């Protein structure tokens, strides 16, 4: 009989990181299966099977990358993998690409995501950037054209609307545009072209409720992110003569909800404190709107997440405090962040609208000088 000396507490909760990751896995698979059923029904078996093929390729590539890492560094493969969860990154990455993505593009993006996004930083828990986000960024910048034409499902609402400059000429013009995708209600349910995991707001919402209930994610992140996008685009829209559909379109399209539920909530790359997480989600929302309206990229969610990942350490320091005694101070910081962020995004949007109008005016004056001939 031996009495062991152990530091208190000698009592632990049942919930483990492995269990958290298990719930996350279930949630991701639910999203995947829901979309895949839609593919089978809407586009046929070839599409459905291809989506499964993409998922398998990515998971295998991610796992093999870590196995090779273990072999090179002489680590025990089983213990390493069971506390590194490469498949989660792989599934998230697969869900952010379209079913038309080529296998090799996805595989290379996965390998880069795992190796440069995670392992070189020191593995699980040490990475600064969301690994799936890194993979998706590589995919977007290097393999955008690498699509298999047989599996193209059509232009996404985000890309289409971005071509129109993110503002509709009138409510009627918007209705014509969105009717190509079945209207906002279809966009809520998810029956329109887009990345595998991003399309169904409804499924993502249900999955988010499950994850919050299982204490896997903090409800504040999706609520603040989606809420901030909504409020910001509502005001920008109202000032520029857009209807209530404008903020709704912004939150339904382009993986905003997917990013809110699965990528911003990544515990490794977001801040640990509650006010920190709120500012993090808020900042990502501002960047999303800013990139959408002002930048050349059609999609803002992905890069907004990576940008906020860079700011995570700074946000952590900003809220290094006594959470109870400094609550008022922290609240002030959150409010200031919101006001400053909103003013910047609003100002940039107005600048964009004004320069666009100025360009139109210049054109008109040139047109009149040339005697009404179109240029």
């Amino acid at each position, binding site marked *: *009989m*031996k*009495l*062991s*000396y*152990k*530091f*208190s*507490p*000698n*009592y*632990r*909760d049942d*919930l*483990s*990181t*492995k*269990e*958290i990751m298990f719930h996350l896995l279930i949630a991701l698979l639910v999203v995947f299966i829901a979309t895949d059923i839609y593919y089978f029904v809407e586009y046929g078996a070839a599409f459905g099977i291809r989506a499964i093929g993409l998922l398998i390729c990515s998971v295998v590539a991610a796992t093999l990358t870590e196995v090779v890492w273990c072999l090179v560094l002489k680590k025990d493969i089983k213990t390493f993998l069971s*506390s590194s969860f490469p498949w989660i990154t792989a599934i998230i990455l697969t869900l952010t690409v379209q079913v038309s993505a080529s296998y090799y593009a996805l595989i290379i993006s996965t390998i880069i995501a795992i190796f440069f996004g995670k392992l070189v930083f020191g*593995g*699980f*828990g*040490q990475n600064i950037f969301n690994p799936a986000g890194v993979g998706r960024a590589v995919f977007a910048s290097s393999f955008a054209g690498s699509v298999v034409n047989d599996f193209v499902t059509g232009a996404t609402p985000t890309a289409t609307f971005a071509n129109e400059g993110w503002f509709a000429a009138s409510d009627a013009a918007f209705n014509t545009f969105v009717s190509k995708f079945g209207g906002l209600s279809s966009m809520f349910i998810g029956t329109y072209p887009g990345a595998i995991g991003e399309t169904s707001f409804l499924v993502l919402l249900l999955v988010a409720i499950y994850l919050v209930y299982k204490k896997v994610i*903090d409800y*504040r992140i999706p609520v603040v992110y989606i809420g901030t996008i909504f409020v910001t685009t509502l005001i920008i829209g109202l000032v520029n003569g857009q209807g209530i559909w404008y903020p709704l379109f912004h939150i339904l399209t382009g993986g905003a909800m997917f990013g809110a539920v699965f990528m911003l909530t990544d*515990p*490794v790359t*977001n*801040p*640990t*404190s*509650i*006010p920190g*997480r*709120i500012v993090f989600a808020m900042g990502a929302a501002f960047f999303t709107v800013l990139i959408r309206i002002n930048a050349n990229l059609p999609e803002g969610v992905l890069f907004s997440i990576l940008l906020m990942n860079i700011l995570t350490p700074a946000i*952590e*320091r900003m809220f*290094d*405090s*006594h*959470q*109870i*005694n400094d*609550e008022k101070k*922290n*609240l002030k910081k*959150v409010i200031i962040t919101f006001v400053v962020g909103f003013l910047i995004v609003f100002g940039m949007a107005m600048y964009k609208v004004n320069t666009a109008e100025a360009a139109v005016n210049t054109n008109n004056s040139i047109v009149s000088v040339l005697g009404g001939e179109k240029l």
Partner: protein
Amino acid sequence: MSILLGKMSYHAFGHKDLTAHDEIIKLEAPSEIKIPLMISNAPFEAIVKEGDKVKVGTKLGARNDHFYVPVYSPVSGVVKGIKKNMHSSLKQVDHLIIENDGKFEFEAPFEPLDFEKASHKELLEFVKEAGLVGCGGAGFPTYVKYMMPEKIDTLIINAVECEPYITSDFRGIYDNLDLFVHGVRAMFKLSGGKEGLVAIKEDKTDLIPILEEAFSSYPEIKVAKVPNVYPMGWERTLVYELVKKRYVKLPSEVGCVVSNATTAIALADALINSMPITRKLVTVSGNGIKKPANVLTYVGTPVKYLIDKCGGYNGDKIILIAGGPMMGKSMVSDQYVIEAQCNAVTVLIDEPIDEIACLRCGRCSDYCPSGLQPVRINNAEKTKDLEALRKLSVMDCIECGLCSFVCPSKIQVTEGIRKAKRYFALNNKK
């Protein structure tokens, strides 16, 4: 609840059924009783010497620093001298050895007192002379808390017992209801408050109606149900739950005084029977003991004696904890003795814990009842960042253990914070 604050408490599975509903086992006194010459890390001066005959209630000595706490003999017999023995502080400490003659001759150390007729001053003096200390684990002298009745609005009797496994307060109240009511009423008078609250967890559905009935003729004292979460029994959490006010140092700042339920019973025993704390109800529980039970044992009894009476250890590798599993220290020897403030011995089987990397989920910060950020404190400790530790108010940690408890990666977060506190205390002397 504020949007910027987490829950700051957590429901922990209590394992209370192991002992809550079984009869108390009354243990005989062992042939030798050892009284540590130390109370709550303060020196204790003995006034008896080798060869002296003592009776139950004979004054052995007193804590004589800035507080006065007399200690009385729990048995009758002969003082055998002073010997070093393992203490619950994990140090070797001088113990007064008394050989028990088994006769239990009693000499009343003080006269009984009718608290209803006594003045506040008389009552306070009585509590001081009775050597009453907080029986919840800390052993703080009770009289000190009640010296400023003019500041107090609310007396809180802490019957929360939020540590897992421990049921000694619950069982003590259940079996000594009359004494408990008497003690609470006396404390209410002593406090000078306008309202008395007996705080008890809402899941104690068997005891709550009994208590409500018992206090029904004293409208100034109410039974307050509190959520079944840890650390609801911590003074700050409890005061905030009941009066929604936070204080800086002492609960008297917000008009409250808090005493443990078992302390109230001990006070009643002293008032009615002139009996100081000579016996203690101790929960011996956990998966590492064969027959978990509440045992009534004499102060100064070695824990080994309790373990043997509860069927012995249930395994080869054991963690023996003085107190509950959350805050209690693990002991390397079972020779330490039961003191007045002991309420539990938790015996657990030593099972390996699979610790993996921190995933920075921030759960420790969400649930910290002090509102600290354990993960940030641990990071600051690793980089020896004194300024960050100051910002993070590292010294406000009470080591309740909740951060380690909720950590999904099973990291010893609390131990990291202890390190940070030591580092900060050493380097912050300016």
